[in-house]
């Protein structure tokens, strides 16, 4: 395997593309840094001048209002100038337009790209071809990774549960197509979680999923035993029409998280969801809005985590290497 292209020559974060290859120490540093940004939302002055004068471009090849707005807000709270570009990908859009887009923006002296793309590996490609001073943050690429989401979920877990080494975490739903799941599994294992368990029908699990470092269950009630943290994944409607699942109601019957099913987990288990939620498909409203749900906390932590990651990726840029 090649060297970790995410770190600069001093081992500091330069790109943030995937959890893979990052040490426990670095992930913890991200969480600690985010901690210091958390208090800011309560402050009267919500901005700090850390990235003043820097230009951050949100390059969204895949639409996402929620992720884009949190990245925009995070960048603005760091006093950076932000440009958000939504590019619809046509079916013929290939490497050419991707590279051309990057080059055109580089010519306007930008410092960072935040990239979301429908194809796995897009963020790596951009990081490899962007000018040397530019940092790239992966806001989700195809089915591969969504590392900022994973970090904000780790942050939320740490806020409430504190010690990863004792935790049993269940990730429930469409693991096969989920970049969030892949990043969360990596983050949990790197941070030393006691067990990561995936619960899904066989059609929604990737080949050799155990090689990711998880145990597998195809049964929700059995799978929830002894679980401290439940991470629900969104089930996309397209899955119903591609011979992966028979129907939403059948899925909900087997894998939908209801109040009753929740009782099979530990009594103080928390329920998380990266959003947006499909109520009545993967999760019952009563659970999503219930006392064990920390979904809203995840959202409010999202800005602090992204601020931390952006600030860390931009540091040391002044030094001539």
């Amino acid at each position, binding site marked *: 395997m090649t060297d970790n292209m995410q770190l600069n020559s001093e081992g*500091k974060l330069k790109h943030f593309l995937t959890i893979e290859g990052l040490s426990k120490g670095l992930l913890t*540093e991200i969480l*600690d*840094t985010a*901690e*210091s940004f958390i*208090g*800011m939302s*309560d*402050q*009267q*002055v919500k*901005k*700090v*001048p*850390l990235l003043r004068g820097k230009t951050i471009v949100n390059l969204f090849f895949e639409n996402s209002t929620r992720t884009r707005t949190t990245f925009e807000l995070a960048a603005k709270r760091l006093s950076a100038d932000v440009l958000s570009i939504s590019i619809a990908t046509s079916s013929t859009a290939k490497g050419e337009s991707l590279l051309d887009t990057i080059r055109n923006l580089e010519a306007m002296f930008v410092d960072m790209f935040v990239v979301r793309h429908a194809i796995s590996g897009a963020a790596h490609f951009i990081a490899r071809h962007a000018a040397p001073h530019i940092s790239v943050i992966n806001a989700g690429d195809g089915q591969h990774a969504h590392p900022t989401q994973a970090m904000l979920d780790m942050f939320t877990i740490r806020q409430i549960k504190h010690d990863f080494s004792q935790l049993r975490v269940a990730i429930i739903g469409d693991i096969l197509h989920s970049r969030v799941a892949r990043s969360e599994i990596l983050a949990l294992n790197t941070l030393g979680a006691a067990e990561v368990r995936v619960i899904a029908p066989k059609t929604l699990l990737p080949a050799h999923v155990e090689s990711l470092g998880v145990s597998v269950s195809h049964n929700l009630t059995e799978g929830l035993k002894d679980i401290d943290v439940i991470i629900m994944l969104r089930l996309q409607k397209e899955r119903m029409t591609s011979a992966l699942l028979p129907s939403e109601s059948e899925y909900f019957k087997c894998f939908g998280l209801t109040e009753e099913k929740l009782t099979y987990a530990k009594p103080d288990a928390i329920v998380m969801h990266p959003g947006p939620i499909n109520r009545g498909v993967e999760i019952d409203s009563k659970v999503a809005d219930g006392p064990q749900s920390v979904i809203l906390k995840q959202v409010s932590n999202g800005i602090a985590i992204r601020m*931390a990651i952006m*600030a*860390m990726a*931009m*540091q*040391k*840029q*002044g*030094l001539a290497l």
Partner: protein
Amino acid sequence: MLEIPQLLDNLETSLKRAIAERKLANPLMIGIRTGGVWVAEQMHRRLAIIEPLGLLDISFYRDDFSQIGVNPNVKPSQLPINIEGRNIILIDDVFYTGRTIRAALNEIFDYGRPNQVVLGVLIERNGKQIPLSPDCIGASITLDQDRRIKLTGPAPLAIDVQTINAMV
């Protein structure tokens, strides 16, 4: 000879004089983390200020971010809601290059427009790099270029002088 009790007394006297001369009505005292807060706590008590001490963390306002990066152990600043028109007594432990005070001023002004800011430090030393200076001091000293002076605390408060290595 630098003795903490003497330094504190000197600073207290100097601050009382400044408050009178510059007519600092209802002053808000702000200490700069971490050493400045320890000194400010002392002054806050000695000057019998009722309003709680403001705490300022300047990590995010430092001008050397691109060299040293983000400090992961930052606690948020704690300042009252309204800075507008207030008279501020800003306290730090050591005044050296002046960059800390510049950062502190930037941060305070982001909160609002104060009426006056008076700067009190326990020790002023040589090596200024920014055209700022303290209004009230405990003592003014001269050190060789390769020496650093630090306040340790909070209890007991003590002065620590170190020599930094040439190869750093």
